[in-house]
């Protein structure tokens, strides 16, 4: 650690975030390393270290001899101020070396509101933020993560995007980069070679033209480049890398526990859910592999808590076998096992009792919409009866508080649907009184609503987001009709949802606004301490862009979408079909009941998914 850094660390909050040196942090001998990666997470240490994808790829890259991957997180404002005041460039936590000395800078992009932090981190590293201002003397800047399913808004800043799951493509990409470094290729040669790697998208090799109405006219790849770029997946999770030996932070992080991923993909097909479409096809891990990995991870980390993660854990067929196997190890050692993402429809008594034997936490359900009609529109196949069953089990099992998540502004939503949320919350309260141990009071219901954000690669990618005034009107309507003392109502701030809607379906022209907003001080937009909508509105105006064009406009059936440079494997025709069914309020059965022909089976050997 340099003396300069030692001098500023006592001046900032939680300095342990900026020191590295944690248990299992990888420190390599520089003389044995020919390629260095700065793996950047554009949010705080506490959030970035909670990301399983980051831990997986850190392990994958450091598993390669000759490659050293280090971590970089976005410094909080106080630290940024000190770094800038003392002229200290942003550095890798493991070595303390400035980011500019690395060969590759890789960002993990999970949330649109973190985009300004990407720019800010490059700037803090002393690297030109726009790719047009960089050349072969600068590190190559790549990005991966779910946001890359629409890479265009960041295409002014990122050289290469990696689509889908990174375990394999990262290794292939590093091979090309190391060869380029060893043989002294030009940046142009390197980019052209990377464009040939399946799953990598190089925005500088695609030209975009626009029509008079502002929509995209064409996206033309340069010679030798193919579009769309199909995402990559890992076909066998049992043999793919899982970090049983992983960094144990010395300071508290958000998810400070063993994270065990039970499967990827989701059988459900909720029409608003990008993850549900983008992670197809479903691939499960063998329960015995999971038990062995979970135990190994507990032993290696000393964590006293484990969580099972997936998009819908109760759809994991051998869930009971898995929980029993893990509990045999966890229960006698007081290791807590938690299962988020349980569905309300098949929440079983026996499973809950098993978990209860270790530790009891609050229960959360996400009906998403207040009426059955609207739940059918979004294909959230949960009925009121399902919810009642689950609540009965929960309340009679001793739980006394239930959280309910909803979205407002879903396509076709009427005031009746909004008021349906209040009805449902009151019913849950009544069930609590009926089935709970305390006949009077003691039951708490928390209702949360967020503003619906239409996402690319979903059945609702054509939809307009309701404007902020309308969202707030619905919030007020709901609040005025849900005044019960035992019901708490929280609503998500619509300003960030609006900006999220702009960027999630934006095109590359937004790069100018992103740059301008960042120049005017935008960063950590996911944090209310920093977020300022006016700054963004000003930036859009300065750049001559209309944010409502992106967020609040219903898009034409045949319109070319910016994100169509990428493909999740799920076809546009299927999504259009799903949209039509949504308007008819017709549900589509889950993938186990019946294949709906989405197209993701192209990833499966023999064309058949193991849903």
């Amino acid at each position, binding site marked *: *650690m340099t*003396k300069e850094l*030692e*001098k500023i*660390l*006592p001046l900032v909050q939680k*300095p*342990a975030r*900026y*020191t*590295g*040196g*944690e*248990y299992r*942090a990888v*420190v390599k001998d520089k003389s044995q390393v020919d390629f260095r990666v700065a793996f950047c997470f554009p949010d705080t240490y506490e959030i970035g270290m909670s990301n399983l994808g980051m831990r997986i790829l850190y392990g994958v890259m450091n598993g390669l001899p000759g490659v050293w991957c280090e971590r970089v997180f976005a410094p909080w404002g106080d630290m940024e101020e000190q770094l800038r005041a003392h002229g200290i460039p942003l550095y890798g936590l493991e070595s303390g070396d400035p980011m500019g000395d690395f060969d590759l800078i890789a960002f993990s992009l999970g949330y649109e509101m973190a985009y300004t932090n990407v720019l800010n981190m490059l700037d803090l590293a002393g690297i030109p933020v726009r790719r047009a201002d960089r050349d072969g003397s600068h590190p190559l800047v790549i990005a991966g993560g779910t946001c890359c399913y629409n890479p265009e808004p960041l295409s002014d800043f990122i050289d290469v995007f990696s689509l889908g799951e990174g375990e394999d493509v990262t290794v292939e990409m590093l091979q090309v980069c190391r060869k380029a470094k060893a043989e002294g290729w030009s940046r142009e040669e390197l980019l052209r070679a990377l464009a040939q790697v399946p799953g990598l998208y190089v925005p500088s090799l695609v030209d975009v033209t626009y029509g008079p109405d502002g929509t995209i006219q064409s996206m033309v790849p340069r010679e030798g480049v193919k579009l769309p770029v199909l995402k990559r997946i890992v076909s066998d999770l049992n043999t793919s890398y899982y970090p049983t030996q992983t960094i*144990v932070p*010395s*300071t*508290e992080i958000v998810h400070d526990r063993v994270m065990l991923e039970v499967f990827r993909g989701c059988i459900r097909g909720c029409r608003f859910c990008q993850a549900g479409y983008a992670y197809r096809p479903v691939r499960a891990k063998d329960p015995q592999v999971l038990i062995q990995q979970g135990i190994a991870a507990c*032993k*290696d*980390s*000393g*964590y*006293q808590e484990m969580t099972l993660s997936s998009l819908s854990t109760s759809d994991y067929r051998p869930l009971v076998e898995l929980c029993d196997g893990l509990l045999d190890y966890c229960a006698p050692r*007081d290791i807590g096992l938690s299962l988020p993402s349980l569905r309300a429809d098949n929440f079983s008594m026996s499973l809950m009792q098993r978990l209860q034997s270790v530790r009891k936490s609050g229960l959360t359900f996400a009906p998403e919409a207040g009426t059955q009609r609207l739940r059918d529109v979004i294909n959230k196949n949960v009925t009121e009866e399902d919810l009642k069953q689950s609540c009965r089990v929960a309340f009679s099992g001793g739980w006394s508080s239930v959280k309910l998540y909803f979205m407002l502004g879903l396509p076709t939503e009427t005031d009746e649907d909004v008021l349906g949320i209040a009805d449902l919350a009151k019913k849950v309260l009544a069930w609590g009184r009926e089935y709970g141990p305390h006949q009077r009071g003691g039951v708490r219901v928390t209702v949360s609503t967020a503003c619906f954000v239409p996402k690319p690669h979903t059945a609702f990618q054509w939809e307009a987001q309701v404007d902020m005034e309308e969202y707030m009107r619905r919030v007020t309507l709901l609040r005025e009709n849900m005044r019960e003392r035992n019901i708490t109502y929280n609503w998500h701030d619509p300003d960030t949802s609006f900006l999220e809607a702009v960027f999630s379906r934006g095109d590359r022209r937004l790069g100018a606004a992103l740059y301008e907003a960042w120049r005017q001080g935008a960063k950590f937009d996911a944090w209310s301490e920093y977020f300022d909508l006016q700054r963004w509105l000003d930036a859009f105006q300065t750049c001559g862009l209309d944010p409502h064009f992106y967020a609040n406009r219903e898009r034409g059936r045949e319109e070319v979408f910016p994100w169509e440079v990428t493909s999740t494997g799920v076809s546009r025709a299927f999504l259009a079909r799903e949209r039509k069914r949504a308007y008819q309020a017709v549900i589509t059965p889950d993938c186990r009941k019946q294949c709906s022909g989405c197209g993701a089976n192209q990833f499966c050997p023999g064309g058949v998914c193991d849903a």
Partner: protein
Amino acid sequence: MPKDRLLFVKEGRARYISHLDLMRTFQRAFLRADIPIKHTEGFHPHPFISIALPLSLGFSSRCELLEFGLLEGTTHEEVPARLNAALPEGVRVLTCYPGQRPTRELQWVLYELRVDRAGDAPELCRAWGELLGRESWKVEKPSKKVKTGAVTVDIPTLVKEFTFTDITETGCVLQIALSAQNPGLNPSVMVNALTEACPQFTPEFVQYERLEILDRDGKIFR
């Protein structure tokens, strides 16, 4: 309760691990090293771990004490090596032994302060030495424990002895034994008071290190 002790070093990057985080780090390290230790009793039993004299964030130390209870099956001799393999960089166990004396007999802490001050370090030493050597020098110290938000501290009564060494062009080293507890004096509080009293000698930077813990008679405490 348990009376086994660890003597450990906290240095380098580990200096920025806070007291609470360090307790959690040790709890996990015992689990990683597969060294079973005694737990608290009650509804939510957790491993019993207590670190004497919490160290300020950013300070290094060669003499931290951790109290815990070793369960049967592990010898004191094997603990340091096994635990060190499970601890983060900068936290290093020197010895493990059964504690004999209660920690309340711990009276003094010997600190080393590396003071950066270009140009006039000798003058700084003289000014600071004069203040620390007085019979009495009362200063206000901020405190969360009292309503007024500040308590009066008579600094020289909390100083056992001090020497300035290595006085150079760029600074000096102050070795000073300060009261450990009831009441204790944090050397950074002392430096703040010295700086306030002689602002013309404001140090550019001070690095703090605990060198040794002593009993009432100035003998090494274990």
